[in-house]
């Protein structure tokens, strides 16, 4: 068979990516120096890393447009319906201990005008969760997955996008201050599919999401947008990995964050791998961090690994700083006060991401949330 040979040839010579696996033993309890764990607050994440049973669930509030169906599958079935096997211990435990996966299906050729909306809320319980979104071929949809309240939540989310489908997958982490949320979101982009993901992380003591994507065939296009606002004592970590494993694919990543307050910590990892087979692809990754006060720490690591010279283009950029002085100067020269100018700059910075959500009431809600965050260090908006 050709496939195993190809797999062997394509065996990854990289320290960045552990081999995905459902077996918990393949993901030993981290010591802290491992490449994928060296930025993470292991003590705060202990419950998500410890193999202990829990039957608790989050409370679901869902709204499904006509045609969308849901069902529960067993843990064994879920291992076959997967974009990628778990990439870390948290998601491996989530898949193994969740007692099965909730599947949400968008039928082939459906043109959904309303979003598939799921809000998960917690009241402090410890939860293992596994969700599978199956997006039918040539369908068009928006998925909204919101997290609220308080929980210790380990999750595995698979998004299987059929050939030619268009999907906008929005995940919002708007937890209370004491929540701890870790897991793995994986996307499989079908042939010629157009996938956009928007990940917004605002609340929670710890949010640590691995977001991986790969392609099921040529021609797929992936856009990933992210926004995070990190307050004092918060740790927000997004670990992206785009695996260009098929030719003529395209990816674009744009994550933006702001940090304020003592001990605010953000981590952004943007790994891109361009395999030998992935000729004529293009990719660009961008991460921008605004550090608003002292006492914060922003880590930004855009890694790029390229195994073929036959590409259209590849690049990345990372900027970290306070404010764009030129923008500030421009606004102030038009008679806008410094405080107001700063606020406008931050709003503009995030508005570019928020408008990608594509659901007006959620966009408004998110702009409001950014506004509230800003009032912490810049005074209320009045």
């Amino acid at each position, binding site marked *: 068979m050709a496939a195993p040979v190809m797999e062997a040839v394509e065996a990854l010579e990289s320290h960045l990516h552990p081999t995905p696996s459902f077996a918990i033993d393949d993901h030993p309890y981290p010591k*802290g*120096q491992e490449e994928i764990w*060296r930025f993470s607050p292991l*003590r705060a994440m202990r419950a998500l890393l410890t193999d202990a049973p829990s039957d608790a669930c989050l409370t679901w509030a869902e709204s499904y447009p006509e045609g969308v169906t849901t069902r529960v599958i067993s843990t064994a079935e879920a291992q076959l319906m997967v974009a990628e096997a778990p990439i870390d211990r948290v998601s491996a435990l989530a898949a193994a201990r969740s007692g099965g996966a909730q599947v949400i299906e968008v039928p082939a050729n459906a043109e959904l005008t309303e979003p598939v909306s799921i809000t998960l809320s917690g009241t402090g319980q410890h939860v293992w969760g596994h969700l599978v979104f199956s997006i039918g071929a040539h369908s068009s949809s928006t998925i909204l997955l919101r997290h609220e309240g308080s929980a210790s939540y380990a999750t595995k989310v698979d998004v299987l996008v059929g050939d030619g489908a268009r999907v906008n997958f929005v995940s919002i982490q708007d937890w209370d201050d004491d929540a701890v949320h870790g897991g793995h979101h994986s996307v499989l982009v079908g042939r010629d599919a157009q996938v956009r993901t928007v990940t917004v992380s605002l609340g929670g003591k710890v949010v640590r999401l691995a977001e991986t994507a790969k392609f099921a065939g040529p021609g797929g296009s992936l856009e990933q947008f992210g926004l995070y606002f990190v307050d004092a004592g918060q740790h927000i970590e997004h670990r992206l990995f785009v695996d260009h494993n098929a030719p003529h694919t395209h990816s674009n990543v744009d994550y933006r964050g702001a940090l304020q307050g003592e001990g605010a910590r953000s981590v952004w990892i943007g790994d891109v791998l361009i395999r030998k087979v992935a000729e004529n692809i293009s990719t660009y990754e961008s991460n921008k961090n605004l550090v608003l006060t002292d006492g914060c720490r922003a880590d930004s690591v855009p890694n790029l690994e390229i195994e073929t010279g036959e590409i259209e283009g590849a690049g990345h950029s990372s900027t970290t700083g306070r404010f764009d002085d030129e923008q500030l100067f421009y606004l102030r020269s038009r008679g806008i006060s410094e405080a107001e100018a700063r606020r406008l700059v931050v709003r503009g910075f995030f508005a570019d991401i928020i408008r990608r959500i594509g659901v007006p009431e959620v966009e408004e809600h998110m702009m409001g949330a950014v506004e509230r965050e800003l009032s912490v260090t810049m005074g209320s908006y009045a």
Partner: protein
Amino acid sequence: MTFRLAATLDEVPVGTSIPVDLGGDAEVAVVNTVDGVFAIRDVCSHAEVPLTDGEVEGCTIECYMHGSRFDLRTGEPLELPATQPVPIYPVRLDGTDIYVDIDNPINQEN
């Protein structure tokens, strides 16, 4: 001031250190030296690895990972690559019991 029992002297012979969990955001290294007993946050300020994995040399503890030594009296690094101090804590001896107050680091300004 909350001094908590961290260890007893027989658990930490001179020239050694042990990690102790006193409930803070990180463990505390209790270090016994010829110059007395010291307590320092058990996390190197450079690569965030446990200092108790390194060697005790005179009145210093050396990070095993990249070799910076920290003065146990001040928490300051004596050479690169570490450049930032590590918090050190007040220690009180009662017989052979070692008490440490992690709420009031000695070398933090605020």
